[in-house]
């Protein structure tokens, strides 16, 4: 693959923009955090610099204005305010649009950039004029008094790849020299002999004593492009720090071992602070390559099972060991490769923070989004499809669930509402819950609506839970008027369907006046699952193992005794079952003793009658292709060891299908 600096920049910018969004939302609370402001400044600075280098002048030009604004925030001449956060968010969006143009996206609306720049300038002017009389904030007095020179000791150990990446230490050091008087010492003791040296690796490291009026941040900014993988320590020295010490270091030149330098640094009694920047090394890989890798592993798993089958049937005993070894290796490889595709769900949560911020402003509500378990990992392909349903749930909470601040005060609740978005691992599933402290789901309203829409009979006897689940039915929406936040004609049924498609399950809970919650349980991965292989007639089917609770036997006599009612007693409890032979219209006679695979679905158990249970099977899920898109009772297919195809049963869809078949009979 050809190295493309623009592509790399675009990827990097994407991450930076996500970081900017997060930091800006943190600023929104009006709290001044040096760390956050620095992060913002650096992110914009990097976008400006790298963008300029890649020839994206529009991006660099625009970013320059934001950077100048932030520079003044950092100096303390402009205070942190919600308006500032708003401007940063708008700027971030504009930069995203500009970057999108590079990737073939739509052009930014004409004049939008100029308008935003004008707004930024206007804000800066107003704030600076207003804030003039204020006493500068109390932080770091020594650094902020203009003109007062402070001595700094800088230890810079570059990333070994500095030179091969086109980094130039001379330019870097000259930039430091431009800040003030500088004593630079290069340390060459780590340069190996010729037989061990790699010509493009940087072995030198530097200590610099710099006397400057510039702040630590200004010094750090010099290193902003070479920080990755580097070790940078900047410490303030007391003004009296004898200059001779530096001279001594220099005069002694190579005779000085590293420890001495270390001890001098440690001995400086008035070191103000010390911070080293070391980052983990990571590799950027386009997700298509990972998907390809997963596909390859899938094929490998299938080939391995064919090989195992062939070896057990025709192979000699000498095949047994290698085939078992191969099975172990393939399983390990599969787990690792799937592990690479796992992403923390926090990448998704970040987006929601912005959504909640924008929507609550639009609806005139005050809402905090609290997230938990952002580090919980989920397969990338699931994460990609999870965004929409979660957005819909959040919109619902914000629009229907949460009351206006005035209403909340009347009810004795704090005016700021909280939506809690949490993710956690439970066994082979990840459970995501969205919980608000709003008015809860009005069960009476739900019931009335369902009667009105003829979804249930007027006198239907339903449990609380069943009533709640009515909102998951297609076409159900209790919003009196259609707002542009939620209630766009699609309802929770879309969410339910999306979650079903991900092989997940969804449940609702609500407490009147206290709030509602939606929990979504999702499998960890979609590519390869553990399946239970079953046989009906000549056909084989796979039931996802995660749903299977047990298998029981069903005698023909027992079936006849129940008089055609499809229920079976499992340890004293009646469990309904679906006859897969009838449902799928498969031919053949059913054996005298059938098997019922009992599965868990949405809190209920139900059985599927099959001829035989063949055992567990590592199932590589293959999609059926667009010709079979309309078949919803199977979610995919897999290729067996003997080359035959087995369909994978979609449990939720089977329940729906069976219910549809029963309905005419009931009426």
């Amino acid at each position, binding site marked *: 693959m050809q190295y493309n600096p623009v592509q790399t920049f675009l990827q990097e910018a994407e991450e930076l923009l996500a970081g900017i969004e997060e930091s800006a939302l943190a600023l929104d609370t009006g709290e001044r955090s040096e760390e956050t402001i620095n992060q913002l400044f650096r992110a914009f600075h990097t976008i400006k610099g790298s963008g300029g280098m890649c020839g994206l002048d529009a991006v660099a030009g625009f970013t320059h204005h934001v950077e100048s604004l932030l520079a003044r925030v950092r100096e303390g001449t402009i205070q942190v305010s919600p308006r500032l956060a708003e401007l940063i968010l708008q700027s971030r969006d504009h930069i995203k649009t500009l970057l999108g143009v590079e990737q073939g996206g739509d052009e930014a609306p004409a004049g939008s950039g100029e308008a935003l720049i004008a707004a930024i300038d206007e804000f800066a002017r107003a704030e600076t004029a207003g804030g003039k009389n204020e006493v500068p904030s109390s932080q770091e007095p020594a650094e902020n008094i203009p003109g007062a020179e402070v001595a700094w000791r800088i230890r810079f150990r570059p990333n070994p790849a500095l030179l091969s990446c086109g980094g130039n230490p001379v330019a870097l050091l000259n930039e430091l020299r431009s800040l003030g008087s500088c004593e*630079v010492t290069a340390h060459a003791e780590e340069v190996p002999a010729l*037989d061990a040296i790699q010509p493009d690796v940087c072995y030198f490291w530097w200590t610099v004593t710099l006397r400057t009026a510039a702040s630590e941040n200004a010094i750090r900014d010099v290193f902003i492009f070479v920080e990755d993988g580097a070790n940078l320590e900047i410490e303030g020295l007391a003004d009296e720090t004898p200059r001779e010490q530096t001279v001594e270091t220099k005069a002694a030149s190579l005779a000085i071992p590293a420890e001495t330098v270390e001890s001098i640094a440690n001995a400086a009694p008035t070191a103000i602070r010390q911070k080293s920047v070391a980052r983990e090394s990571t590799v950027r890989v386009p997700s298509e390559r990972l998907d390809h890798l997963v596909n390859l592993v899938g094929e490998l798993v299938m080939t391995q099972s064919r090989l195992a089958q062939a070896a057990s049937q025709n192979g000699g005993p000498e095949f047994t060991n290698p085939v078992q070894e191969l099975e172990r290796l393939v399983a390990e490889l599969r787990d690792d490769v799937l592990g690479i595709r796992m992403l923390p769900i926090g990448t998704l949560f970040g987006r929601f923070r912005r959504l909640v911020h924008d929507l609550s402003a639009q609806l005139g509500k005050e809402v905090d989004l609290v997230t938990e378990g952002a580090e919980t990992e989920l397969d990338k392909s699931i994460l990609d499809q999870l965004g929409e349903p979660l957005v819909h749930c959040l919109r619902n909470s914000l629009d229907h669930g949460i009351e206006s601040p005035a209403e909340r005060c009347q009810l004795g609740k704090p005016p700021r509402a909280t939506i809690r978005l949490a993710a956690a691992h439970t066994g082979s599933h990840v459970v995501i819950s969205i919980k608000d402290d709003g008015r809860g789901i009005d069960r009476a309203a739900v019931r009335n609506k369902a009667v009105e829409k003829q979804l249930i009979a007027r006198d239907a006897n339903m449990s609380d839970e069943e009533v709640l689940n009515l909102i998951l039915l297609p076409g159900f929406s209790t919003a009196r008027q259609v707002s542009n936040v939620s209630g766009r004609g699609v309802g929770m049924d879309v969410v339910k369907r999306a979650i079903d498609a991900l092989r997940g399950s969804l449940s609702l809970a609500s407490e009147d006046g206290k709030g509602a919650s939606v929990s979504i349980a999702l499998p960890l991965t979609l590519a390869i699952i553990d399946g239970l292989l079953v046989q009906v007639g000549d056909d084989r089917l796979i039931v996802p193992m995660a749903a299977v609770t047990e298998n029981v036997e069903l005698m023909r006599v027992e079936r006849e005794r129940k008089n055609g009612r499809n229920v079976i007693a499992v340890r004293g409890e009646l469990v309904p079952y679906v006859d897969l032979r009838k449902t799928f219209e498969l031919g053949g006679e059913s054996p005298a003793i059938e098997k019922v695979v009992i599965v868990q679905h949405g809190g209920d158990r139900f059985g599927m009658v099959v001829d035989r249970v063949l055992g567990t099977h590592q199932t590589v899920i293959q999609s059926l292709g667009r010709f079979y898109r309309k078949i919803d009772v199977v979610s995919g297919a897999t290729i067996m060891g003997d080359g035959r195809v087995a369909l994978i049963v979609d449990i939720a869809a089977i329940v729906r299908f069976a219910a549809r078949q029963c309905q005419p009979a009931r009426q």
Partner: protein
Amino acid sequence: MEISKDESGTVLKIQGSLDIGVAEELHKTLLESLDDRVRLMDLSAVDACDTAALQLLCAARKTVERQGNRLRFAGLSAAVADSCASLGLPVGELAAESEEESRAV
């Protein structure tokens, strides 16, 4: 870039522009030509010298020192001297020990 040895085999003369682009080549040539007779490196005809090249010169000095001998650099060109100064490389790392030695080249 060019490296040549005088008849005595003790002086190695490097000419031309030394930068990361030729670092690989410089490394190879130094490995080949730096036998245990070389004592002096003549840098008077070096037009440019970047960080990577300076590292290689330091490595050359270390290599010779490991063999128990000393390698001296003589006739530092302005380009080499400038690079050393810019990088803050101590004079002892890369310089002629004395005037006489420079003249001896």
